[in-house]
C-alpha cells in the first residue's frame, strides 16, 4: 500500500543528507513499528511522506496505492488516505477544533467526489469518538490544541485520525509524554482502527506502546536508514539491550 523505495532526503537550507536510502513497504492490514535513536531521521521520514516543505528528495520514490505522491501537495496526500499524527501537534489560536475537523473531513470528501457530512452526522460522530478517547466536549470547542496538555494534544491527534479514517496512519512518538492510562486510551484508539484495509507506521522509542499496539513488523532506523527488520521480538531486544548491540551488528 505504501511503498518507499531508496528514499534519499536532504534539507533545503543546508547541504545535509538526513535520509540515506530508506526502503520500506507497508501492506494493508499490517502494523509496522519504527524504532531508532534520536536524530536517526524518523520524524523527517514522516514529514517527507506527508509533504512538508523544506526537504529535498534527492533520490528514490514513494507510492501510495499506486500513486507517486512525492510531487503531491500535503492536502492531496491526505485525500489519498495518508495521515500523520504529529510528534508535536501545533497550536492554532483562533481556529476552532470543530470547525477544523469538519472542514478537513469535507475537504477530503469533496476531493474524492463524495457528499459533505451533514452537521448532525458530524456532531454525533465526533461526540462518539471523543467519548472513547475521553476528550470532553469543552476541549472540542476550544481552538485547535490551544491550552491542551501534552496528553490531550496526542489524544486529539488520534481523534482526528478516527474521524478522517485514513488508509495509512503514521504515528510519530504518539506515546511520548503520556502516562500509562493515556497511553492505553491512545492504543485503544489505534486498535479500534486496525483493519484489513489500513496500514500503520508507528514510530516509537518504547516497547511499552507496542505491548498495547502489537506490531507485525519492527524496523530499526539509524543514521537515515533502516538497518534491521524483524518481528515483534526485535522491539523487546531493543527494550532489554538498547540500540548499540543492534547497531554494531548491522554495521
Amino acid at each position: 500500500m505504501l511503498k518507499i523505495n531508496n528514499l534519499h532526503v536532504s534539507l533545503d537550507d543546508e547541504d545535509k543528507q538526513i535520509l540515506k536510502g530508506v526502503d520500506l513497504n507497508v501492506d494493508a492490514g499490517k502494523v509496522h513499528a519504527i524504532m531508532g535513536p534520536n536524530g536517526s531521521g524518523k520524524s523527517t521520514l514522516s514529514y517527507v511522506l506527508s509533504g512538508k516543505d523544506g526537504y529535498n528528495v534527492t533520490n528514490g520514490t514513494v507510492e501510495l496505492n499506486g500513486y507517486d505522491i512525492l510531487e503531491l501537495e500535503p492536502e492531496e496526500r491526505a485525500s489519498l488516505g495518508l495521515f500523520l499524527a504529529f510528534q508535536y501537534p501545533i497550536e492554532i489560536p483562533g481556529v476552532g477544533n470543530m470547525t477544523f475537523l469538519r472542514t478537513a473531513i469535507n475537504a477530503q470528501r469533496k476531493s474524492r467526489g463524495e457528499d459533505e457530512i451533514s452537521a448532525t452526522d458530524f456532531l454525533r460522530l465526533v461526540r462518539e469518538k471523543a467519548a472513547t478517547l475521553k476528550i470532553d466536549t469543552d476541549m472540542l470547542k476550544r481552538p485547535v490544541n490551544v491550552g491542551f496538555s501534552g496528553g490531550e494534544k496526542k489524544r486529539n491527534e488520534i481523534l482526528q485520525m478516527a474521524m478522517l479514517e485514513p488508509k495509512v496512519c503514521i504515528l510519530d512518538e504518539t506515546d511520548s509524554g503520556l502516562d500509562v492510562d493515556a497511553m492505553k486510551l491512545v492504543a485503544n484508539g489505534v486498535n479500534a482502527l486496525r483493519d484489513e484495509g489500513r496500514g500503520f507506521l508507528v514510530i516509537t522509542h518504547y516497547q511499552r506502546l507496542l505491548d498495547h499496539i502489537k506490531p507485525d513488523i519492527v524496523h530499526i532506523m539509524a543514521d537515515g536508514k533502516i538497518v534491521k527488520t524483524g518481528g515483534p521480538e526485535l522491539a523487546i531486544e531493543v527494550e532489554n539491550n538498547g540500540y548499540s548491540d543492534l547497531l554494531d551488528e548491522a554495521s
Partner: protein
Amino acid sequence: MSFPEQNSAENLEIKESALVTAGWSAEARKDAFERTMKSGLPTARDEYWKYTNPKSLTSKIVEKAPLSKDKEGGMFTGANPIKIVFVDGKFAPEKSDDLDVSGLSVERLSIINKLNLHWAKDLYGRYEKLSQVSVPRPLAAYNTAYADEGVVINVSERIERPINIIYEHADEYSDVILRHIIKIDDNAELTLLENGPAAARLNQVMEVKLSDGAKFNHIRVLGRDHERRTATHIFGELGKEAKFKSFTLTVNGVLTRNECFLNINGDDAAAHISGACIGDGDFHHDDTVFITHDAVGSESRQVFKKVLRNGATGVFQGKILVKPNAQKTDGYQISQSLLLDEDSQFLAKPELEIYADDVACSHGSTSGAIDEEALFYLTSRGISKQIAIDMLTMAFLAEAVEEIENIKLKQVILDLLTNWLDRHSS
C-alpha cells in the same frame, strides 16, 4: 518627486466666499476656514502624512470611482435598525425610516443649519478645533468650514434599536462632505451602524459627546467600489464612566484614512477603538488614533489587525497620551499585520506619552507572515492551501472582531469577512 503646493491650482479651493454666513454655525465655520488657511491642506511632506499620500484627497479633480455591480444593501437588517440613507451625500427620504423614536432626536444639518440657535452650536467644530493642538488636521477643519449635510443626533435614553446610516454611491465622480454630531446624555445609550461606499471621494467628520455614564457602540463597514477615496475623522469626549466603542471593518478601497481623536475627561471612562481590514492589491488603509487620558481610572484599548496581500499597504499611527492627573490609567494598544506576500507592507508608528506615574500602559506592533507550521498542520489534514490560509487569516483577525460585544453584529462582520475571502481567493 514633487507634490503640488497646498494652495496650488491643482488643489481644492479654500474660499471664504463659499462659507455659510448665517445661522448658529457661521462663527465656527469662519473659525475653521481660518484654521484651514493657516495650516494649508495636508501634503506628503507633512510628518503626520508621511505614510499616506493625501494628494487624491486634496486635489481639485476627483478621480473616477466606478460602481460595483451589487448594490449596497442593508447588511444589518437582522438588527432591525432605524435606517438613514444618503446617496452621494444627499439624504434619500424615500429609502429612510421614520425617525420619530422616543428618547431620540435626529435632525439633518442642512435643515437646522438655517436656524439662529441650536444645541449643536456647542459641539460643532469644538473637538475638531481641540484636536488641532497636537497636530494640524486640515481635512477635518475643511469639513467644519464647508459641510452642509449630515445627521445631528441627541440621545436622551437607552435606545434599543440601532441607527444604521447607509451611504449609497451612484455618481462615479461624486465628491462628498458629511458631518455628523452626536450627543448622548447622561446614562443614555446608542448603537450606530454605518455602511456603504458613500462617494468617489468622501470627507466625513463625526463629533461625539458622551455625558456621564453614556454608552456609544459604533460599528462601521467600509467596502465596495474599490476606487473610492475616503478620509474620516471621529472626534469625541467621554464623561465620567462613559463607554465608547468603535469598530471598523475595511475591505477594498484604494485609499482610506480613518482618524480617531478622543479625550477621556471623566473618571473611570473607557474607550475601545478597533479595526480589521483586508487589503488586496492597490489598497491603502491608514488608521490614525490619538487618545488622551485626562481623568482618573480610565481605560483605553486600540486593537487593529490588517491582512495585506498582492502589494497592499497598511498604516497605523496610534498614540496614547496620559496627562499628569490621569492616575490609574489602563492603556492598551496593539497593531498587527499579516503580510501574505513580500510586495505588501505595513507601516506603524505606535506611541506612548505618559506624564502620570501610576499607570499601566502597553503597546505592541508586529508584522508577520502566515505561520508555515500551522499551514502544514491544516493542509496535512486535507484542507486546501487556500482554505487553510483563509482560516488562519480569520484567526488572525479574530482579536479585533472580538471587540464587538453584540453577538449578532459580530456574526454579521464574520460573515462579511468569510464571504469576502471566498470571493477573493488569491
